[in-house]
């Protein structure tokens, strides 16, 4: 009988061993010790300890008591940063770019603010682990196409259903009419472009009138089921930001006027590729911007070659509140590098880091939860061997919503399998 128990026990152990091959995100209480803690809002703490409990930062400082049941992770020689936030992506809404049925960000129709990006996010997208292992823990994922493509959502890059991922903020996306060419393949004449611009502007103004009317009707209690109109009400009331995509200088000016004419209080401009040309006007209007991608080519062949790198810094210098985005689907992981280029070409390291942490948190109204390492905020953070903007740096640990997320992704698995393939070359 003793031998039977042994057999049973050893079988159990083997089974547990097999299960342990797939790493899962684990919650619990953690103490990260001996680290350089870059809080972003309250300076840097040398030789610090950060305690995570119940999904939050429970304590942080150089003299912190470590709870008894905490799992200690020695971070000597390493740095702790807040999880980075990408303020504009299609992550989770696109799996294989050229296969259209795997893309969920572009619905049919011009005016469709009721399209909810959040529900269409694929929590199991292969790109999500690939992204977070670079320290990006939170992204705004956005619909696109048409005049008002839908409602974007801020999501944490962990969770098995959209609600688990939801990070507490949304915004209605709007594409301001574009008076420039769309790309190198756009062969429309000046007149055609102007005509379409006028048409689009007219359309958006008409739609806006309808929305205002709907608001009145709704207050009178007479509204029908008009989901697209309904989706605009929080924007009208300033509760949800209106994210206006606008890039050309003349269009940005027009958009500023448009926003002021309608007395909208909660507006963010996205893209702003030529923001540097109208930086002062943006600053005066007090409209925060989400700039990027930083790694793009200048908008005009006569522009100085480094304009897109310098754009965020130039706007910041003029007093504009600037967050950064990659506007990517599967390469959102390049956010820290985009920020690095912005830092190098004028923004400076500190401000560039803010532009992907606390500033987007403030813009989206979740600064009490995200964007810096402060007691009480959500435990979205990572541990790195150095500056996360530098390619040489490795990320060794990752926490999202207090869960210890394994540093694992398909890219890493393929590395492990193929670095030394077995069998190798065999005749």
């Amino acid at each position, binding site marked *: 009988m003793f031998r039977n128990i042994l057999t049973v026990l050893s079988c159990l152990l083997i089974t547990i061993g097999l299960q342990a091959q797939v790493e899962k995100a684990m919650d619990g209480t953690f103490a990260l010790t001996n680290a350089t803690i870059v809080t972003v809002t309250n300076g840097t703490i040398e030789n610090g300890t950060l305690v995570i409990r119940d999904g939050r930062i429970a304590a942080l400082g150089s003299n912190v008591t470590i709870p008894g049941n905490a799992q200690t992770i020695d971070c000597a020689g390493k740095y702790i940063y807040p999880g980075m936030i990408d303020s504009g992506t299609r992550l989770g809404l696109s799996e294989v770019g050229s296969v259209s049925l795997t893309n969920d960000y572009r619905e049919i129709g011009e005016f469709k603010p009721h399209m909810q990006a959040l529900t269409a996010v694929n929590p199991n997208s292969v790109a999500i682990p690939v992204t977070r292992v670079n320290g990006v823990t939170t992204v705004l994922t956005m619909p696109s196409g048409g005049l008002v493509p839908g409602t974007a959502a801020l999501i944490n890059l962990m969770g098995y259903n959209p609600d688990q991922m939801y990070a507490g903020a949304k915004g209605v996306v709007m594409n301001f009419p574009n*008076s420039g060419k769309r790309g190198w393949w756009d*062969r429309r004449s000046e007149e055609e472009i*102007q005509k379409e*611009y006028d048409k689009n502007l007219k359309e958006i103004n008409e739609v806006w009138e309808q929305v205002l009317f709907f608001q009145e009707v709704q207050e009178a209690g007479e509204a029908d089921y008009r989901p697209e109109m309904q989706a605009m009400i929080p924007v009208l009331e300033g509760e949800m930001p209106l994210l206006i995509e606008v890039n050309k*200088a*003349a*269009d940005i*000016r*027009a958009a500023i006027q448009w926003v002021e004419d309608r007395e909208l209080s909660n507006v963010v401009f996205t893209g702003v590729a030529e923001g540097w*040309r*109208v930086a*002062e006007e943006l600053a005066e209007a007090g409209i925060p911007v989400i700039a990027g991608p930083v790694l793009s080519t200048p908008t005009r062949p*006569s522009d100085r070659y480094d304009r897109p790198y310098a754009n965020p810094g130039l706007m910041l210098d003029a007093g504009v509140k600037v967050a950064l985005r990659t506007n990517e689907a599967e390469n959102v992981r390049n956010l820290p590098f985009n920020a690095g280029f912005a830092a190098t070409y004028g923004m400076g390291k500190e401000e560039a880091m803010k532009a992907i942490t606390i500033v987007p948190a403030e813009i989206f109204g979740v600064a009490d939860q995200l964007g810096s390492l402060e007691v009480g905020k959500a435990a979205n953070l990572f541990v790195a061997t150095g500056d996360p903007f530098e390619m040489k740096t490795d990320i060794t640990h990752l926490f999202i919503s207090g869960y210890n997320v394994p540093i694992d992704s398909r890219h890493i698995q393929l590395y492990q399998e193929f670095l030394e393939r077995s069998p190798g070359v065999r005749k």
Partner: protein
Amino acid sequence: MLFLVCAFLAIGLSLQAQSVEDALKPVTRTYALTNATIVTQPGEMIEGSTIVIKNGLIDAIGTNVSVPAGAKVIAADSMYVYAGFIDALSNTGVPRPKNEDNGPRRGRRPDGVNPGDPPRELAGVTPEKQVRNDLKPDERSVEDMRKLGYTAAHVVPHGRMLPGQGSIILLAGEDGEDMLLSEGLSLFTQFEAAPGVFPATVIGVMSKFDELYRQTEQMIMHMDAYAKNPKGMDRPERDEALEAMAPVVKGEKPLFFMAPGVKDIYRVLRMQDDLGFNLVLTGVKEAWHVADQIAEANIPVIVNLELPDLPKDSKKKEGEEEDEAMDDEMKMLQERAAERMQAFESQAATLADAGIQFGFTAMDAKTNDIHASLRRMIEHGLSEDQALAALTTTPAAMLGVSDMMGTLEEGKMGNLLVSDAPYFAEGANVRFVMIDGHLFEYEAKKATKGNPDATANVNGEWSYTVEVPGQTSEGTLKLIDNSGEISGTFYSTQMPSAEDIENARLNGNELSFDAPVSMGGQRMSLQFTLVITGDTFEGTVSVGEFGTFDVEGFREGDPE
């Protein structure tokens, strides 16, 4: 005006271009233009001179020339007579084929065609094509060029990379063949890809050209060998395209290669270096980069008469306001654009300074802009003599017709133009053109020019009258301005009902549009150019080859 047209019909004329004189069957074929300033060739001017043309040839020129009895005398006092211009290359007189696809970049390839191996016509490889059977003397372009003083042209078929061979035509004749002076003296090539089939890119074109050239070399060798001793040898395959290229490969015919941009020029020069054909560098716009190189290599050049459009007076586009921060940048950009514009405008002068003698091609230019372009080139350093040479003596020499035309000399063809002021002066009008002894007369254009910065309200119903020698014709014009889009209808008392106008454009206070009308089964387009001042307008209407007439009108009632 319509009445007059119908009158012409009544006299039993076909609608083919005939001179005003011919319409009434000339009583004489001897003309004397008296007391004019005659420019016999660039740099040689004789004042108070007379020129006599008999049976289509120049009989006498000079100050002491007596007017023969029975000659039709045209008093050309204070007018200037020049040798008729020769267009070094264009499609004048060759109608554009109807099925040419102007579709979007996608092109429309017929079904069942293998894009990698398409029929030659589709690929644009038709070097054997001649213009003879396509020439139309009443083609719009013929009249347009003639009005400017052109009397002859070197024309090629429409097409893509190898449209065909060039022929010299006179810009008048009873029918196509009648216009033909000399056929197939050159081969024409351009970097034009085929839509959706090989070659669809410029690299495809260049590769295809190289291959055809070498295949032609091979064919020539084969044919020579076969002619010498055919025994035991496969017979040469007949290929009309290669056979058409053979004279170029053998150096017997020149190759006119269209090269407007600087990259085109360098590419063509390299191809010439590789393959060795007799190149005529045609249609150049940016040749200042290679002036010395071309001069040294003695390559004949034909300058493009098309110049970039001058910018409108800083019109602020909607939404494109100036910004203080943009001022420095805008200034710099404006300077660069202006400097480049100057380079284009002074290209001809640069070439002339490098010692290059060149002709002009009207292939790309709008005829209405040619006089202005010449003036711009002259303002930027080209001498009037050089400009005149490029229009007359140089193309004549290039095309091998110096014995017949290019200067005013006894014995040469009666090809000339008469202008009411020195040709290159602003506001100068061509009054007469003579081609091969046929005389064409033109009314002086009214000085009224439109002002692009003025505004005009075209809305409403207008009454108009047209003055034609001996006749006044009238009708109504209804116009609607829909935020810049002009539409409307045109009605004349001779028409059964009103017709919609087409191609209407309002530039400041100058309105232009076409009124299609149908006469005697023929569709014609009347081209109106009106300058609107308040509630009245005045301007001109062009009635095909019949000429241009004055129009006047006023608005009925209140503007809408």
